[in-house]
């Protein structure tokens, strides 16, 4: 029996004729198996994501941990006090704009200034990439 004597079923049949039958995917059996273990894989994914998130939070909290006031962000480039030729100096760093260099000026401390100390302030040129710390 078909829908030839019923206008509605006939219309449905005619329209159905124009629709291609979807073929089963080649990996249908695999899809089913994959789905079977899907819950397990899903749990592993959640666990791995959580671990990764925790690790990220840990790294960030270590990097952005509160520093004592005055602690420089790039301590490896900060020189607080030097002794040059037996005299204590307070170095100053000046950027040479556009040159990609810093000039390290080391004037003698106040107590070392005088006629007996005619040595000009020591200077050094630091080359390489410049990363200036935010004040």
């Amino acid at each position, binding site marked *: *029996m078909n829908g030839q004597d019923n206008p509605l*079923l006939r219309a449905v049949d005619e329209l*159905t004729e124009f*629709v291609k039958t*979807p073929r089963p995917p080649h990996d249908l*059996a695999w*899809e089913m198996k994959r*789905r079977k273990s899907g819950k397990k894989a899903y749990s592993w994914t959640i666990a791995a994501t959580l671990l990764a998130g925790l690790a990220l939070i840990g790294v960030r909290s270590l990097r952005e941990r509160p520093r004592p006031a005055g602690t420089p962000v790039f301590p490896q480039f900060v020189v607080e006090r030097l002794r040059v030729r037996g005299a204590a100096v307070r170095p100053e760093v000046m950027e040479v704009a556009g040159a990609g260099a810093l000039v390290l000026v080391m004037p003698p401390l106040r107590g070392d200034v005088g006629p007996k100390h005619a040595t000009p302030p020591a200077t050094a040129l630091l080359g390489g990439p410049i990363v200036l710390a935010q004040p």
Partner: protein
Amino acid sequence: MREVMTHTVLPDSALSPTASAPRCESVESRPSGDWRLEELVEAVRRGAPGAAEELWSSQARRLIRAAVALGVSIEEAEDVVQETLLSAFRSFHRFDRSKASFQVWTHRILVNGTSNWHRARRRLRMALAQLGGQQREASFLLPDEVLAAQEAKRTLDRLTADLSPVRRRVWVMTQVSGLSMRETAEALGMREATVRSHLRHARAALAHAASGKEKP
């Protein structure tokens, strides 16, 4: 090639406005291929090679017919049915034969899929209306086929215009897919008596639409 369907057909007399009480016994009959379907489902469960593909092929055509009757466009019916079957097979391990047959189960998934399709379609139409554009179907048919398809679609839309979505689903399940009242009730999550009531109203509405009279 059209697959021979096992559904029972509503006769013309039932579509006439004077149609009497619904002949529910006609839709109670089980599709003849059920025992084969059960065997196939069992074979898939055992992991028999090729069984899943055969089960897929045995259901695809039936679901396409149901999807088209539920109003899915012929351009997208294939995709909707493919998604339905993929979803069914992916969660095959959750399928409980004691609760519903495979056919009922796939029809339940199809009904959800078509509802989503209609919802997405409505949103797309609204968005296009706001942008001042209009939707164009990607036609893969020959010119004469386009005319035939358009005519059939017009008939389908005209006859089902007054059917509510629920009644349309009930009508499709029982009359197009050949599910029994009990199976339809299971697929749609309603009581059997409610299915009977919806079917009676659907038949009356279809008969009215077929008679060509204006709605009072």
